């Protein structure tokens, strides 16, 4: 049962991913991406990763995608159409065909690699198997063995914060305009 659900979700995820590429407006892409994220989240859950499933929803859907939406709104890119429309224009042309070939090749390489690699046979898991990413275990790993990257991430987030401020903060009065008229277009509202 859950296996069938997985394949359905997998299809959803792939369709969502395709939607990201094919959506005419960025807004459509976001919606598609959201679908993928949700599908993945459920798959995580099915595969026994409860914490990750939650984190996927919280961080990706809740934070990152909202950020995307926010920027799209901010830049007035969402006005292009409220309906979800597909456009195959990006897949046309020689370069896109080349890109398509590369992508297909990547998928094939991944498939073949996975197929030719011998993984130990999966035994059927118990229906009520405990989550693989139990909180205690995760915590011990994060604060134990991986405490260094964990702390480094704090510096990383701090640096990210600073970086974002540097890049996106509104320009002060008197700061030089850009080469193409910073005052006029630099601060869309």
């Amino acid at each position, binding site marked *: 049962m859950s296996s069938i659900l997985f394949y359905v979700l997998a299809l959803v995820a792939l369709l969502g991913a395709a939607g990201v590429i094919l959506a005419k407006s960025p807004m459509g892409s976001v919606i598609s991406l959201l679908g993928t994220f949700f599908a993945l989240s459920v798959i995580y859950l099915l595969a026994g990763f409860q914490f990750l499933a939650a984190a996927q929803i919280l961080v990706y859907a809740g934070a990152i995608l909202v950020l995307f939406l926010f920027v799209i709104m901010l830049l007035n890119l969402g006005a292009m159409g409220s309906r979800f429309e597909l456009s195959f224009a990006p897949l046309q042309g020689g370069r896109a065909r080349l890109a398509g070939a590369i992508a297909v090749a990547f998928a094939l*390489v*991944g498939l*073949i*690699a*996975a197929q*030719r*690699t*011998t*993984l130990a046979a999966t035994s059927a898991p118990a229906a009520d198997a405990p989550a693989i990413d139990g909180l205690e275990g995760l915590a*011990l790993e994060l*604060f*134990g*063995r*991986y*405490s*260094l*990257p964990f702390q*480094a*991430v704090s*510096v*990383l987030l*701090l*640096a*990210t914060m*600073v*970086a*974002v*401020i*540097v*890049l996106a903060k509104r*320009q*002060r009065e*008197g*700061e*030089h*305009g*850009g*080469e*193409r008229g*910073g005052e006029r277009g*630099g601060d869309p509202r």
Partner: protein
Amino acid sequence: MNAQNLLQMFDANALRALAPLIALALGLVLVLFAGVFPLGRAVRATLVVASLAASAVLHGNLLLGGETPGKVLAGTFESSSTTAMWGLVFVASTLFAWLYSVRYYEEDAPFKNEHDVLMLATAIGMMLMAGARDLIVFFIGLELLSIPLYALAAFRRDRARSVEAGLKYFLLGAFAAGFFLYGSALVYATTGSLSLDTLADPAARAALGQPMALVGVALIAASVFFKVSVFPFHLWVPDVYEGAPTPVTALMATGTKAAGFAFLMSALVLLPASTATTVALIAVITMAAGNFGALAQTDVKRMLAYSGIAHAGTLLLGVAGAIHGDPSNGAPVQASLVYMAAYVATAAGAFGLLALLERDGGPTTLESLKGLAQRRPWVASALTLFMLSLGGIPATGGFLGKYLVFSVAVRSELTGFAIVGVLLSVVALGYYLRVIIAMYMQSPEHDANVSAPRPASAATTLASIVCAALVLATGVLPGWLLELT
């Protein structure tokens, strides 16, 4: 593992290993806070220099102070004399970049503190990369290096080229990060481990021969190749180097590349011997791409960007030699260390002087360099020295590095590749000489267009002198550097 031995992990050894990073992190926070208060420029400068100096001293202590901590924090991080030396290289590259940045931006440019914070953050990232014994640690280090650099590249956000540089670097960097992660996942899936040391175990090594692991390793390699700008992952380099503020370019050219190679040298275990030929081939193609690309340039900064690609190719040849030869032999690591150390001094000096010259007006082109020897004899002679060092002429550090790297290749029976590489470095001299020609042997076509030189800041002067001295010292008396590494 339980909560008690969590704390035990942070013993004195681990602290000693992490101290150089902590010093920088502390400096970073303090600089950030200093921005909140109306403190003078001097305070900020003092903090930056002090934290870098502290880090350098701590590294120096690790290097010269006898026993090194070795692998700490459950084997995720290593602090050896090699990483200490790399650390010194990173500190030096950050310091040079910072010194050159002091007067680079306009007086009233905003976010000076943030600029310095981001620079310090990159240095921490580099050190994490060099010391990483676990792919997670490496990944965080990589991002800690990259994310601030994305912002730094776009630091002059009022200039389209700077933003373009930041955006290109960012997008492609993220793309490469995707490769890295997917590759790590495949490696993990096959071997069940992310630790480089565990991967060196015979069982894991056997697993590493599986197709999926090989694909994973290839993707990881691709992402590192991107960072160190190796063909065909190098195309961003000229654009980003050109668009980024020049001191940042210096940092990218020296620090990032050094960190990438530091990781490559310590992650050799991932690469089976059969990959050596491919890597050597890529190395040679990279040298060709870099050198021929540079040959077509008239903008000196862009030319140096391509030259950086060529140098990455040279170093990669050393990596190929290391793969091919006995990995336990320390020579390749030493060769890449020496090469990088010399390259840092050289490239930092060169880019720094370009930063200085830019302030005289506009980008530095071959045209604008004409007659520089008459206008600024010292700058011209220093730039000449750097060009010769980049070209690997003896009596400069560049020669020593080139010699060592090619000797690794010859040692590993990659002599054919070495010969091609050597011939390509003749092409390289072709464009380095053009810089010298412009400065010394040509005079400006319109004297009126040449603006009067603006005096160099003390920081710039100091940095240039130190760079030049290092280049000469490694070239003439290489003993000390070879002893250190």
